């Protein structure tokens, strides 16, 4: 509303400036909420500053995880017009492989690398043996991916049983760090700081680095150029002499590899158990529907919205928290069916 008001009231303000002012105001309020000492009435409304700030931070780190999974999903869709419903299984396979490698070698980083590489390989194999045969047959591809996900889920249940695994993170990632955010002062004048698990900050950092890396890959390299061209018009790309199959294989490798990577990283932050595949598939579906199919930036925005909605919902209205995620999806579909950053299909 404030944007509209400004537009009609102040003559010289454009729509863009209006949005800018709104964003600045929002940022200022958030900064105040995070850094200021809360008055009592605010504590009464929002439970406590600790709860509020933690839910924001958790939302952002969870968004990082969702982004890792959804970016691969959205890439594959954007290029191949193929909704890979086995994407969640790739996440879970990656997590189990990361668990096994970490357990056998004792090096967590090796587990992470194995999660990425093995899944990238599986991605290529899937593309060459399954999807290439069904090219252009979207419905059949989608059905085949559902089949693969069901078979994979049962195979994993057979191999790793239904137990809950925790991938052990190394010592240097353990423990909590003190954030320079003060929640209150004790009676003796000492400030009470917020403690936050260090590992989660690392997850967030990794997600940002990978996001930037993907953006650079897509926008600054030759392969990226081909991928973008393929997203826009793959027939034309093929006609101009590019080996489309190779591009498809690369995209699938990156997508599957990222899912496997996210599996290990996520399995260390949370846990690995049957059912995770469906959960992450659903999360990435919602993320790309909100963010726009085929857009990396869209995946980032979608992940941020969904991650924050989930965590804030969990703290402030746990019973109906899940609904919030879907409300966001429904509103997006109603206002902008192609998603926030999506191109109309």
């Amino acid at each position, binding site marked *: 509303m404030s944007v509209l008001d400004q537009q009609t009231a102040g003559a010289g303000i454009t729509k863009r400036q209006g949005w800018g002012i709104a964003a600045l105001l929002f940022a200022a309020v958030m900064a105040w909420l995070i850094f200021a000492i809360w008055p009592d009435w605010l504590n009464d409304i929002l*439970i*406590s500053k*600790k*709860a509020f*700030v*933690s*839910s924001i931070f*958790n*939302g952002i780190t*969870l968004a990082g995880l969702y982004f890792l999974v959804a970016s691969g999903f959205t890439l594959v869709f954007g290029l191949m017009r193929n909704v890979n419903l086995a994407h969640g299984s790739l996440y879970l396979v990656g997590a189990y492989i990361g668990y096994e490698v970490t357990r056998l070698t004792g090096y967590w980083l090796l587990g992470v690398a194995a999660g990425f590489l093995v899944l990238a390989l599986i991605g290529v194999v899937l593309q060459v043996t399954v999807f290439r045969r069904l090219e252009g047959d979207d419905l059949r591809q989608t059905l085949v991916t559902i089949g693969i996900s069901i078979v994979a889920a049962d195979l994993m*249940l057979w191999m790793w*049983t*239904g*137990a*809950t*695994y*925790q991938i*052990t993170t190394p010592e240097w990632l*353990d*423990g*909590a760090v003190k954030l320079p955010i003060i929640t209150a002062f004790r009676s003796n004048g000492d400030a009470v700081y917020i*403690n936050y*698990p260090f*590992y*989660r900050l690392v997850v967030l950092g990794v997600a940002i680095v990978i996001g930037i890396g993907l953006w650079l890959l897509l926008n600054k390299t030759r392969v990226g150029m081909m991928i973008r061209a393929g997203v826009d018009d793959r027939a034309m790309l093929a006609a101009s002499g590019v080996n489309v199959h190779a591009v498809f294989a690369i995209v699938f490798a990156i997508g599957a590899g990222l899912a496997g990577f996210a599996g290990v990283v996520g399995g260390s932050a*949370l*846990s690995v*158990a*049957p*059912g*995770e595949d469906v*959960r992450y598939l659903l999360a990435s579906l919602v993320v790309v529907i909100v963010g726009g199919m085929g857009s990396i930036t869209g995946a980032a925005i979608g992940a941020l919205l969904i991650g924050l909605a*989930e*965590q*804030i919902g*969990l*703290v402030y209205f*746990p*019973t109906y*928290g*899940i609904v919030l995620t879907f409300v966001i999806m429904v509103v997006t579909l109603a206002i902008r069916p192609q998603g926030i950053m999506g191109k109309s299909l």
Partner: protein
Amino acid sequence: MHIHRRTLLALALATGLTAPSLALAEDTIKLGILATFEGAFTVLGEDGMRGAMLAIEEANGMAGGKKIEIVKGSSDASPDSAVRAVRKLVEQDGVKVVVGPLSGDEGIAVKDYAKTQPDVTFINGTSAAQDTTLRDPAENFFRFSTDGAQWMAGLGTYAFNEKGYKKVATVAEDYSFPYTQVFGFMAEFCKAGGTVPSKSWVPIGNKDYSSVIAAIPDDVDAIYVALGGADGVNFLTQYQQAGGEAPLIGGSITVDQTVLSSKGKMRDVVIGTPSAGPIADTNDTPEWLAFVEAYKKQPDAFPSPSLFAHGYYINTKAAILALDEVGGDVSDGGKKFREALSKLSFDTPTGKVSLDKNRNAVADMYLTEVSEGADGNLYNKLVKVVSQVNQTLGIPEEEFLALGAVSRENPSCP
């Protein structure tokens, strides 16, 4: 043509797989076993199945002179999946005796379904919501495994008097079984004088608890946690990661073997956690020890049976004992069989079990504390046995019913 041949092959395979169940001899009896073999409670369901198998093997696979034929039904802990699975067992497989389900809401859903199938007898697995048997029970639903409030017998008083906790926050899943557990804990704890200023209800299958942990008030003496399976592991691990300092009090399935035996760093925060439930790992009666020995022979068994193995064992055992009594005859719509069940009173690895008028068990409860065994595994050390706890927790029935049905808000003592 190609497709045709494939379809034919598929059809042939499908009929081949179902055919054996059609060719049944008369001297077998079908026993449906419903448990969670999928979803967040998979481990729990698998252990329940071990318990059921134990009871069946003990009887050499025979009940009332007939060979037991097991038909498995799988749910994912949601009530609709349980009803779907039990309908398949009853309406397609023609099962007359069902053991299950495993989890709280499923129990209520199956009880409601039981009312539409008066000729089929339903014996609980481990579902432990109070209202499965307390309010509006079904004539043909039996529970030999007690409910979640009974399981908490002695814990509230112990936490207040022995541990000295005056102010406790609760974190539990948002469905009928944890409501029942919190009710059982608070019934005693609040009566003793304790307060519960904050209750967090989280959706089942939630992964990320750090926000929930952050929202727990800083000034509580302890946190009562009633989360099961993967949910419990996630909470405990993240509580450790977040540097949680308040001691914990465990619901019956929070510090159960399904959680204690999982791999990870959460061990540090659970040692010393008091809890209560229908079993105690370090129970040293010969009956229990024999049960543990037999249990360990089951494939992939835990170091010690979980309460799911225990519950399914007792309920399956009850089914077999009653079937023995009626000679395996359920041809009268199971009338004689149900009569035998109602009168059944038998000795289990955890003491005597009998039913009340709502067909809910009266049994011994165990107050425990998590400790590390000599072999490095975590166990629930027996602290105290509370003998023969009934569903109204020793309170006269009228008075107990007046407390109201369990829910998010009931009971309350902020």
